[in-house]
C-alpha cells in the first residue's frame, strides 16, 4: 500500500485502554484502537466479542467506564451521538434508523437546525442528489423510505451522515443485508470516500469481505484485542479466523451422503399477500424430499417469511396449493400442519418461536401438552412435563439455572436450543427453519447446524431459509433462489455467481447466456 510508506500517517481517532462493563459481562477490556485518515479499518470478531460496544463508545452512544478517546490529538468525552457527530464521527447501525413514511430528503434533514422553520424540500432534493452522485450513492431523494430496497436505504443512512459533515464513518455489519451486487456498489462508494480522505470503520465477521475492502484489521475476542491494526495485505483468511475464534476453524461441515426419498413438501403456484396487503408470493413452486436440506437464498424481504408462514399455516394463500406427504394442507390451521409433522423454527425467536415470560418447561411442551403422558384429559401432568423438559435440557445442552426459568432470560443461542428441542422432539417429517443461526455466536451456530444435519440423516425434509450464503452452501443439497416472490431457479453445484445473479432478479434460463458471453470476452 502506498499509504504505508508515508512516515507519519495522520491519526484521526485514538482510543486507549477502553473498558466497558455491562451487567454480567466485561464487553471491552483495555481495548486500544487507532484509526488513520483515509483508511478502511476492519473490526473483526465473533458475536459478543465487543466490536459494536467499542464503536458505540466511539460514536457517543455509550460512555466508557475507563479509558480515553483522542480525536486529532485532542481528548474528548461524548455524552450523546450528537457530540460525536459534531467532531465528525457518525455510525450506521445494523438496524437502520430511517422513518419509513418519510422521503429520503426528509430523513436526511431530520434533527438538523437548518432550515429553522419552513422546509422547501425541492432545494434540498437537488443538494442531496448531487452529494449522492459524487460518491456513487444513487437514490431518488423524493422516494419514500418504504419504497426503497435495503441497499438503497443503506445509502440514505450514509448520505445522512455525510450531509452532517462526517469524516469518520462507522458501519456495523453493513453487508449483512445486501445482495452481492449491492455489496460491490457499497465497496466502490467506500473507496471513493477514502480517496476523499474520509476514514471508515468496517465492523464484520465475514472474512472474505474484510480481506477485500480493508487496509488494516483489528481483531477482538471476548472483549480483548488479539490483533491491533495489522496490515490486511500481510495476513490470510485462516490466520484472521484463528485470531477471531482462538482456535483453528473448520470451514466445512461434514456431510454424510443421504439418498433423498419421497417428496414431502410440494408447493405449487402459491400466491400470498404480506402484512401490508401487497402481493408477496407470485406463483411460487418448490419441492422438498425426505432426507435432503433444501436452501432458499434471497435478499431479505423477497417473500421468504411469507413462504414459511404459508407452509406452516400461519398465513393464508390467495392461490395455489400446498401438499405435505401428498395431503392437501392449503389454508389449513397450524394444528393441521403440526399433525402432519411440520415443525417450524421461526425467524422471530422471542415473539413467534417462544413465549418469553413462560418457563422452559412451558415452552417445550407447547406441541405435546395434549398428548400422553403430559396431557391427561384436560389436565397437565406437571411431573411428566418437568421430566420431559429436564431430559431435553440435558440432551440439547440448554444452559439455564432451572427448567422453570423464564425463557426471556436465556441468551439467543440457548433460546434457539429451546425452540429446536421442542421442534425436533416432535419427530418432524418436514422442518421449516428460517434464519436459524442469525445472531448466534460461532459455537452456537455449529450446534444448530449439526442438529439440522442430524434431521437430514434421520430422513426429515428440511427447508432452510437463510440470508447467509455460506451457511446455505455448506448445509444444503440444493438451493432455490427467491426474488420478488418467485423462484428464479435452482442450483445444485453451489455456483455463487449464478446465485448472485438470481438474487438480483435474473431467472436461471437467462443466466446461461450471460455467463457464457462474459467468459467468451
Amino acid at each position, binding site marked *: 500500500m502506498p499509504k504505508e510508506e508515508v512516515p507519519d500517517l495522520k491519526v484521526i481517532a485514538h482510543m486507549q485502554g477502553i473498558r466497558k462493563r455491562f451487567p454480567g459481562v466485561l464487553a471491552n477490556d483495555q481495548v486500544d484502537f487507532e484509526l488513520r485518515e483515509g483508511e478502511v479499518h476492519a473490526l473483526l470478531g465473533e458475536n459478543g466479542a465487543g466490536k459494536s460496544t467499542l464503536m458505540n463508545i466511539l460514536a457517543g452512544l455509550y460512555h466508557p467506564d475507563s479509558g480515553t478517546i483522542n480525536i486529532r490529538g485532542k481528548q474528548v468525552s461524548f455524552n450523546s451521538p450528537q457530540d460525536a457527530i459534531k467532531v465528525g464521527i457518525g455510525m450506521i447501525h445494523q438496524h437502520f434508523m430511517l*422513518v419509513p413514511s418519510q422521503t429520503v430528503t426528509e430523513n436526511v434533514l431530520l434533527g438538523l437546525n437548518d432550515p429553522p422553520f419552513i422546509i422547501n424540500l425541492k432545494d434540498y432534493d437537488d443538494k442531496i442528489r448531487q452529494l449522492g452522485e459524487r460518491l456513487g450513492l444513487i437514490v431518488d431523494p423524493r422516494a419514500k423510505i418504504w419504497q426503497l430496497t435495503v441497499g438503497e436505504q443503506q445509502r440514505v443512512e450514509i448520505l445522512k451522515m455525510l450531509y452532517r459533515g462526517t469524516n469518520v464513518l462507522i458501519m456495523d455489519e453493513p453487508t449483512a443485508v445486501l445482495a452481492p451486487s449491492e455489496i460491490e456498489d457499497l465497496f466502490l462508494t467506500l473507496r471513493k470516500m477514502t480517496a476523499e480522505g474520509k476514514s471508515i470503520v468496517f465492523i464484520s465477521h465475514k472474512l472474505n469481505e474484510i480481506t477485500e475492502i480493508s487496509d488494516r484489521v483489528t481483531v477482538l475476542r471476548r472483549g480483548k484485542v488479539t490483533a491491533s491494526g495489522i496490515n490486511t495485505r500481510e495476513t490470510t483468511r485462516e490466520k484472521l479466523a484463528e485470531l477471531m475464534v482462538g482456535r483453528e476453524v473448520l470451514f466445512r461441515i461434514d456431510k454424510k451422503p443421504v439418498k433423498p426419498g419421497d417428496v414431502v413438501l410440494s408447493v405449487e403456484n402459491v400466491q400470498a399477500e404480506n402484512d401490508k396487503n401487497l402481493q408477496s408470493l407470485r406463483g411460487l413452486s418448490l419441492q422438498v424430499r425426505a432426507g435432503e436440506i433444501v436452501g432458499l437464498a434471497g435478499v431479505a424481504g423477497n417473500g421468504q417469511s411469507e413462504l414459511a408462514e404459508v407452509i406452516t399455516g400461519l398465513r393464508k394463500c390467495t392461490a395455489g396449493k400446498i401438499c405435505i406427504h401428498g395431503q392437501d394442507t392449503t389454508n389449513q390451521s397450524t394444528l393441521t400442519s403440526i399433525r402432519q409433522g411440520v415443525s417450524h423454527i421461526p425467524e422471530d425467536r422471542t415473539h413467534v418461536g417462544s413465549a418469553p415470560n413462560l418457563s422452559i418447561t412451558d415452552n417445550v411442551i407447547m406441541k405435546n401438552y395434549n398428548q400422553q403422558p403430559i396431557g391427561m384429559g384436560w389436565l397437565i401432568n406437571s411431573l411428566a412435563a418437568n421430566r420431559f423438559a429436564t431430559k431435553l435440557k440435558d440432551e440439547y445442552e440448554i444452559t439455564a439455572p432451572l427448567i422453570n426459568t423464564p425463557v426471556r432470560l436465556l441468551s439467543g443461542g440457548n433460546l434457539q436450543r429451546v425452540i429446536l428441542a421442542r421442534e425436533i422432539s416432535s419427530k418432524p417429517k418436514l422442518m421449516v427453519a428460517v434464519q436459524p443461526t442469525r445472531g448466534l455466536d460461532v459455537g452456537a451456530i455449529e450446534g444448530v447446524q449439526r442438529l439440522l444435519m442430524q434431521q437430514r440423516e434421520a430422513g426429515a425434509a428440511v427447508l432452510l431459509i437463510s440470508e447467509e450464503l455460506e451457511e446455505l452452501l455448506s448445509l444444503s443439497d440444493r438451493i432455490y433462489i427467491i426474488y420478488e416472490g418467485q423462484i428464479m431457479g435452482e442450483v445444485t453445484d453451489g455456483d455463487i455467481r449464478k446465485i448472485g445473479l438470481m438474487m438480483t432478479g435474473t431467472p436461471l434460463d437467462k443466466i446461461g447466456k450471460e455467463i457464457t458471453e462474459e467468459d467468451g470476452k
Partner: protein
Amino acid sequence: MDMSIVLQAGVATGTALLFATLGELLAERSGIMNLGVEGMMLLGAMAAYWVSAHYGVPWMGVIIGMLAAGLISQIHAFITINLRADQVVSGLSLNFLAAGVSVVLGEGLNSIKGVAILPSFTIPLLSQIPWIGKIFFTNQGILVYIGYLVFPLVWYFINRTRQGLHLRAVGEFPAAADSLGINVYRMRYLYVFIGGLFAGLAGAAISLSISPGWFSEKTTSGEGWIAVGLVIFAQWNPIRAAFGAYIFGALRRLVLDIQGPMMILGLANPFYYNPYFGFFLQMLPYAFTIIVLVLGSREAIKKRIGTPAALGIPYIRGERGM
C-alpha cells in the same frame, strides 16, 4: 326548514369538533393517543365560562380554559410517557377525572345570568357569495372564523416545517428521531399539551359561543368522543379532519332541526310525529363513531390508512426496532 340555516349552525357546531380533532390529531402524530378529549373539553368549557361569569372577559375565559385542559393533559403525558402505562386506560381515567372536576367546580354556574360571550359577526364581501357566504361567513362566532385559518395552518405545520418533520418522525419511528438528537419525551409532552390546549379551546368555543352556557356534562354531550373517531376517519390529515368535523357538525344540527317542522317537502314529517325516529337519528353520529373506532383498531386497516407507526407504544431508548 331552511337548509342553509341548518348548515350555518352545523358549521358552528363543527368548529368545536374541529378544534378537538386537530388537538387529538397532533398528539397522536407524536405517538400518544389521549382518550380524555371529552373530559378536557368539559374542563375547558367550564373554566372558560367560570372566568367569563366572574370577570366578564370572555377572551380571558378562552385562555384559562385552554390552559386548564392543557395542564390536566400533562397527567396523561406523565403516566404514558414516563411511566409507560397503557394509553387507553390512562386516557379513559383522565376523561373521568377531568369530567368529574368540571361538574363539581361548575356547580351553580348555570344560575349566573348575563355572562359575556364571544362576539359573532358577518364578514362583509365574503358573505355575498351565494350559498357559501350564508353558510360560512354570515353571523358566525369569531372562533368559527379562526377555525377556517387554523386547519390549513396545522396541515402546513405538519408537512412543511422542520418542527412538523420532527413531529412526524417521533410518531413514526422515535428511535430514528432520538438517534439524531430529537428529544422524544419532550416532544411528546409538548404535543399532548398542545392537544389539551385545543380540547380546551373546543370546550370554550361551545360554552362561550356555539351554545353558550354551562349545562354540566351535557355541555359537550359526547363531542370529545366523536373527535377521537374523527381523527381516524381523517386518517391523521388536518384537511380531512376539517371536512369530517364540518360534516359531523351539520349532521348533529340536522338531527336536532329535522324534528321541528310538521311537514317536509309537502309530506308529513315522520320525525315530528314519532319521537322514536328522533332518538334513532340522535344515535347516528355516535354509532358512526363506534364503527370508525372499531374499524380503526383493526391492525390490517391500521396499516393501510397510515396510522402513526409508533402510536400507543411507549418509547424506551435502546430497545430494538422502536
